[in-house]
């Protein structure tokens, strides 16, 4: 049969955002593919050069609607690295707790998104319902459901309350019970397993060379997590370990994310126990010194990095964002080539699409 190129996107249910996967098909088999991005490009890196350092925090929130907290966090870490600020101990713990809450919320949205991709609407409703609990926690912590504007350069905006900590513990207890339901729905469902197991192999050597990070890398058996190998904030004091699966297929990537949600619950419980009392914020200088700052952290999608150059004024000279999904998407052809057209949504859904941070 003659080969032909097909556009999957930019308006396609598989894409979860605006991007285009061009695939070359031979009958039902994908023989070549090329992702096309840029539909959501807003010139973020140019925009921030016109704004002062505190003004960029809410803009960093809007890089990714799924995990906005982690983006403002990595921005503040980079600027603190540039200004050589030391954050109070309690603020570090609060940041870690908020990070892990965001990770759970983001993974729940991913779980909700892949359900309809694989033909199961129930898991969509379940995961969105539980995500709402975490949105409520964020709302009572900082007043917003999705774009929090909660970190500050030098700490966090406000302290937690005892009532919030009580609600948090209750939510975690409740959520752990619900996790069992998700696994009953997905792991014990033969149709799901058949559509995930053995699909889209990505060897560890390929994953490392192509710059794939985060759950997709750990699904290929590489034990690397920025929280463990380049620890920021207080992760080295907490009792946890990275979740790794050796199978290299779509099901392994799914398992890593499910295990990470459990691990996040464990991290939050441990952090709540070890959190000291004290101030939550120090006052940063208005003008950043000349020099460079770099910070990276474990975003729900992989390794996010910001590189900031200060020139002695109140505005950054240059702010570069390394988006984890940007790089993972460039590795998509390795995963997609050779599979069937019907498997493409399952493969691309499993690496957790977020176009806001990719196109910037």
């Amino acid at each position, binding site marked *: 049969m003659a080969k032909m190129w097909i556009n999957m996107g930019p308006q396609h249910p598989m894409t979860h955002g605006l991007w285009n996967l061009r695939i070359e098909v031979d009958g039902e088999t994908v023989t070549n593919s090329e992702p096309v991005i840029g539909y959501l490009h807003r010139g973020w890196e140019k925009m921030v050069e016109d704004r002062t350092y505190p003004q960029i925090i809410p803009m960093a929130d809007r890089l990714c609607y799924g995990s906005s907290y982690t983006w403002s966090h990595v921005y503040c870490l980079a600027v603190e690295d540039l200004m050589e600020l030391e954050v109070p101990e309690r603020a570090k713990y609060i940041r870690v707790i908020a990070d892990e809450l965001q990770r759970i919320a983001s993974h729940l949205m991913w779980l909700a998104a892949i359900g309809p991709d694989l033909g199961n609407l129930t898991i969509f409703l379940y995961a969105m319902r539980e995500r709402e609990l975490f949105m409520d926690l964020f709302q009572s912590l900082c007043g917003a459901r999705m774009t929090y504007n909660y970190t500050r350069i030098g700490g966090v905006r406000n302290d937690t309350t005892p009532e919030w900590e009580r609600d948090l513990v209750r939510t975690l207890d409740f959520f752990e019970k619900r996790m069992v339901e998700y696994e009953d729905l997905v792991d014990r469902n033969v149709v799901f397993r058949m559509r995930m197991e053995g699909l889209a192999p990505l060897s560890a050597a390929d994953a490392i060379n*192509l710059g794939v990070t985060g759950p997709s890398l750990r699904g290929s058996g590489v034990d690397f997590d920025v929280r463990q190998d380049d620890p920021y904030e207080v992760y080295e004091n907490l009792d946890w370990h990275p979740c790794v699966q050796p199978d290299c297929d779509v099901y392994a990537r799914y398992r890593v994310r499910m295990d990470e949600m459990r691990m996040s619950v464990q991290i939050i419980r441990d952090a709540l126990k070890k959190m000291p009392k004290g101030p939550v914020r120090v006052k940063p200088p208005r003008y950043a010194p000349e020099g460079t700052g770099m910070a990276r952290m474990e975003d729900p999608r992989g390794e996010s*990095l910001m590189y900031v150059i200060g020139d002695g004024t109140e505005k950054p000279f240059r702010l570069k964002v390394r988006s984890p999904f940007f790089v993972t998407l*460039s*590795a998509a052809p390795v995963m997609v080539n050779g599979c069937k057209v019907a498997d493409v949504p399952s493969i691309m859904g499993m690496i957790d699409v977020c176009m806001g941070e990719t196109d910037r």
Partner: protein
Amino acid sequence: MTEVTYLTDAFTIDQVKEKITSEFSSDEVKILDKNKPRRIYCTADKDSILKLCTFLKDALNFEHCSCVSGVDRIDCFQVVYHITSYANRITIEIVVDLPHDNPEVDSITPLWGGANWHEREAYDMFGIIFKNHPKLARILLDEDVQFFPMRKDFKSGGL
């Protein structure tokens, strides 16, 4: 549960610095005096960046290219590489200066596939040419765009 078998011995920061200084002259690679845990900062000459990266990858276990950023310093362009070693747990930051009228540098995509789209983005935004790149085309902007928007002489209109 699982371990990565193809990684060999890990090096400390001092060992990595020592190996780099013994391999390269101070004109080619200069290690900066800026100390932070798990970080190395250095500058490199534009002709020796590919040799340095090959050395880092083959001899010092730097497996992962985290980021490639373009910077317009007005009097020159810079390319900043962040390269990570999973085995050593070190990130090295390499700054390369390029002349403003002829910004050309060797591509490191043949070494790390992860640098591919970063270099395309640096070309897209700054017009920096990466030699031997497999496909140096616009990535975020349209193909027929005639300008390089992240250059400092391109005014955005802004605030």
